[in-house]
């Protein structure tokens, strides 16, 4: 059986395939009836696009398998994806993941029906201010206001993006976190309207891409609070040559520095006299 993707379907799959090439999204695509579903390799991000015009047979393949808009289902259960360029033709053959396709479509539908407890609409501009080097983003929505937090555990600092005027719509009370790489994929399709559910977010990305993104959680999230300073892992050695006088509290090197500064001030006074 042969079929050909229309321009809209091809655009979506080619775009996802391109995201895979640049390392932003690694996953598989499933086609069934009027829908295309893309699931990333960690199974925590699902992107769905549908159209009344489509009527695909059920199949699935890795995004890196996608070669072109022309498909053929062979009798032995394989799929051929091909494209023609100039006087040449490129074809890729891969197994048809029919059962997986059906399972993921059902899973998507069951999660999409769940109730929400908060929502937020975010533009690409807001997200562009996030630090792409950090691994996670935390979203806090309270009293109609939102903020995006990122924390660098190595440096111990926290970064916060929030709106100066209430332009972005936010409702409910939300505290959740996402893997930044997956979160940013949502914004590849335009502005994102998010509806927060227990454990995940339902998102409408751009005009017609629906997405589910799994939340994550960790200690110390959602607060603008720096971590306590850590030692380097070695036990500090007692410096016996500089024992503090009895009854005098020490606070590491700070006390020593204060004493030095005092001595320096005294010396300056003497010199100025």
């Amino acid at each position, binding site marked *: 059986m042969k079929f050909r993707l229309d321009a809209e379907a091809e655009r979506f799959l080619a775009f996802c395939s391109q995201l895979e090439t640049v390392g932003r999204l690694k996953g598989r695509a499933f086609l069934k009836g009027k829908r295309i579903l893309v699931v990333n390799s960690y199974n925590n991000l699902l992107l769905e696009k549908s159209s009344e015009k489509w009527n695909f047979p059920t199949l699935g393949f890795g995004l890196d398998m996608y070669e072109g808009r022309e498909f053929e289902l062979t009798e032995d259960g394989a799929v051929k994806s091909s494209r023609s360029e100039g006087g040449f033709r490129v074809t890729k053959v891969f197994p048809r993941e029919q059962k997986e396709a059906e399972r993921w479509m059902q899973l998507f539908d069951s999660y999409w029906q769940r109730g929400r407890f908060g929502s937020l609409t975010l533009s690409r501009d807001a997200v562009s201010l996030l630090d792409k080097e950090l691994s996670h983003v935390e979203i806090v929505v309270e009293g109609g206001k939102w903020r995006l937090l990122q924390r660098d555990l190595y*440096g111990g600092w926290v970064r916060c993006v929030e709106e100066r005027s209430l332009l972005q719509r936010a409702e409910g009370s939300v505290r959740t976190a996402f893997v930044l790489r997956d979160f940013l994929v949502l914004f590849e399709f335009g502005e994102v309207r998010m509806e927060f559910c227990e454990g*995940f977010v339902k998102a409408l990305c751009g005009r017609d891409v629906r997405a589910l993104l799994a939340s*994550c*959680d960790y200690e110390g999230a959602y607060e603008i609070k720096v971590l306590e300073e850590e030692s380097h892992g070695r036990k500090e050695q007692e410096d016996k040559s500089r024992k503090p006088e009895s009854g005098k509290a020490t606070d*590491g090197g700070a006390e020593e520095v204060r004493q030095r500064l005092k001595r320096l001030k005294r010396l300056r006074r003497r010199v100025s006299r």
Partner: protein
Amino acid sequence: MRYEEKVRKALRLIPRLGVFMRGWRFRSPHLRKTGYREFSFEDGCWTDRRRLLKKEEIRSFVEISLRAAYCPMPINLDVYDGLVCPYGCIYCFANYFRYSLYTSFFDNWKEVGIRHCNPEFLKRHLGRLFERALGKDPAGLKGLEKAIAWRIPLRFGIRFEDFLGVEKRRRVALETMKFLNSWDYPYMINTKSALLGEDPEYLRVLSEGKAAVHLTLITHREELRKRLEPNAPSVDRRLRAARNLVEAGVRVVARMEPFIVGMTDEDARGYFSLLREVGIKNITLDTYSYSAVGTQVRELFFRKGLDLDKIQLLNCDSQPLASYWLGEFMEEARREGFSCSTFDMGNVPDNDQNICCEVEDWFTGSTFNWGSTVGAIRFVKMKRGKPCRWKDFVEWVEEKCGGFLTDKLQEACKRSWNGEDAYGLVWAKGMEPVGLDEDGIVWRYSEELSDFRQVLVEGCSYEV
């Protein structure tokens, strides 16, 4: 000009580093998010993503060393492991490697103390290895099995100190040593611990087996030892242990690693006389083999009021200057009657033994990994001025020990032969490239050849 005088002149080239304040604390460079969990669409619930390191036990580290392309004795065996070694030697970079590894990949790194392998597992594992390899023709074997068939001594204490206080209670290393004795298999122990010489049972086991001990002693000055190795046994304890070991008939080699450049003639004489007193006749040395500009090691030196740059900057990664000074120091040691060898490629031609660990004459029943850079340098020197091709070396290795350990190691050794990596023949004193063939450089050893390291030092030693 004696060693100390040369060093003093060259040290003027390194600016003294002043710091405004000592004792500032820095943030650990590696941390993981704690209590991490993620929602799973497939399971419909939150799942714990913690990755836990086994706290009580490790699988053994019997392996061919990463340096096998250069080293004639490249089998490591470590029975202990931990986040941080309690000896707290400030020049130790292995602590940072482990710390970086564990904190980056595991969630329970704060709970990891000293772990040890299961002796029963280790015995089974080693037993199977010995059954497969010992007494077999090495030509039909590869890698670890081939090394065992050659009876290359196993080396304890490469990744971690295996004779800490916990060993007194657990006796894991002791069990392993007894097991090796039962197979009459040779082993060598790198340690700073005095346990081996203090506990009669360890002494007995060592004297019954084919064993040698590399006792690390980088200085004889207790005050400096305290600053550099704060929790390690004192110089006196180590020397007493060494005396007991020597008296029990165990080969003890003083290990001076890292070699400290700024040692004075008086220091050297004091060091040698103490070694002589306890009966040590062999010394092995090496330069500091890690970039001294690493911020963490450097910070620890500064905290102790030591200028790392003065002590180690010229000394690290076998730089030519340090290599030259090391050679001069080895000459001093020879004048004092010691046999000494080094892994520093610059001085390998002058080593008193072909094996830089100073145990070639001790492990007489063993065949070593001659298909290594150290082997190659010794081969070229042995040819006494005759041009040596790579093919000649390969033939010699075949004849001497039945070939290279693995094909990969042969390739790595060839790269080193052709000067394509840091530890090559190109570093070695007296090595002269005299031609090229289809395999690369043709080398010749020449005693008359001016030493490029000496030229460099003399160029630097201007009067200020």
